[in-house]
């Protein structure tokens, strides 16, 4: 009974009530993943599971046995920050920094979805290749709230890095 977090096998909780979020924060002490609402309504707890973005507050940890979870702590490489992390700093894509890990994980998941061709609510043509226009990024990131109002910087940082990367 284990799951993989940032490449390492860790035990699952014995109490099935424990969310993946609380397991990360309280047991594994990986507090980079944030609890904003615990209601599935803010996106602060976004992590990547097998590369897909999900809300860890609505995920019971026991449901994720054997799955590979990447949190904000797992993004930087040996050579330093992930390019998106660096771009968040350069574009001032945060103020208080509390929604930031969720925004960053979400953006990485979003780029993979777009690359796969998943359309969005604002895609005019459901069957066309995805172009990550500003509006597309905004819609696809709308599950991540920011109360400080760093939206412009967040979208700029994403478009300058992960969105540009695969589109190129």
């Amino acid at each position: 009974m284990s799951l993989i977090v940032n490449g390492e096998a860790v035990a699952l909780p014995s109490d099935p009530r424990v969310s993946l979020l609380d397991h990360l924060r309280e047991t594994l002490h990986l507090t980079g993943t944030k609890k904003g609402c615990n209601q599935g309504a803010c996106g602060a707890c976004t992590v990547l599971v097998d590369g897909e973005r999900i809300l860890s507050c609505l995920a019971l940890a026991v449901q994720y046995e054997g799955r590979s979870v990447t949190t904000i702590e797992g993004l930087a490489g040996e050579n330093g920050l992930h390019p998106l992390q660096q771009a968040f700093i350069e574009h001032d894509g945060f103020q208080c920094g509390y929604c930031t890990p969720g925004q960053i994980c979400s953006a990485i998941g979003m780029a993979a979805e777009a690359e796969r061709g998943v359309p969005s609510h604002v895609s005019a043509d459901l069957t066309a290749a995805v172009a990550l226009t500003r509006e597309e990024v905004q819609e696809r990131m709308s599950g991540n709230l920011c109360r400080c109002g760093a939206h412009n910087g967040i979208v700029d940082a994403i478009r300058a890095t992960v969105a540009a990367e695969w589109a190129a």
Partner: protein
Amino acid sequence: MTPFSYARAGDAAEALRLGAAGATAYLGGGTNLVDLMRETVARPEALVDVTGLSATIEETDGGGLRIGAAARNTALAEHRAVRERYPMLSRAILAGASAQIRNMATVGGNLLQRTRCTYFYDTDGSRCNKRAPGEGCDAREGFNRIHAVLGASEACVATHPSDMCVALVALDARVHVAGAGGERTVPIADFHRLPGDSPERDTVLAPGELITAIELPALPLAARSTYRKVRDRASYAFALISVAAAIELDGERVGDVRVAFGGVAHKPWRALKAEAALRGGPATPEAIHAAAALEFADAAPLRHNAFKPALAGRTLAAVLGELVKGEAA
């Protein structure tokens, strides 16, 4: 959260066996159930995880699609056949929740979403017949902007929150259900209930019954269809009104048409009266408004949602107008 046991089902038979005990709930993506359990609205004693069951999306012999109940919402929305042949369904799913939630939520679970009525959620401080039968309804005279205008009862004025189901209703989907007594198929229009005297029951599922698949019939008309959602912010909000529609012209006249509304009733609302009124007639704004007016003739608005019938009519006229324009082009 009330304590519960957790077990994962390997197949439908195992799920049914595990689910036969009282106070067991099937767990899909958890995006609604876990929230309701945390709020103590839902207090199952056992959870049976059914995400390992069939998530396959496959062609049926009849030219339709069969969707395993464990398919994730994103998987359905992005499926090539759905995008091409049932665009209203893709669009309805993509209009709902957020990408993270769509990645988690299963199709079966989406059918079982419960209302967003805030009195339903307020376990400590408010009365709700859906949550605690017979207790009373604080929504009827409270904040009811998001509530029902059609088919409500004295006991309950809640709305069904799903976007996906509105499209499924317009598409005449069928719900495959397995239970102790075997399998059965329920037309989606009959799957969700009106509240009547027992608003605690959202659907016709019997205790222990499991949704195994959704089947979409072949419906050429649906290739020209769409879904439009009207809400209080640009994204990530529940519908005030939504419309799923498809239309086929026969010359200048309406050949066939499908219309369903979300945000107006305790169930996704198939607008059969409006469809009948439109068939064979002109697809003009006047005719569409008249058809919508007929559909909402029995509307019983509450204090904060009197705008809904008119908004539904206007939105329908715009949606059908766009589809007609698209077909003409």
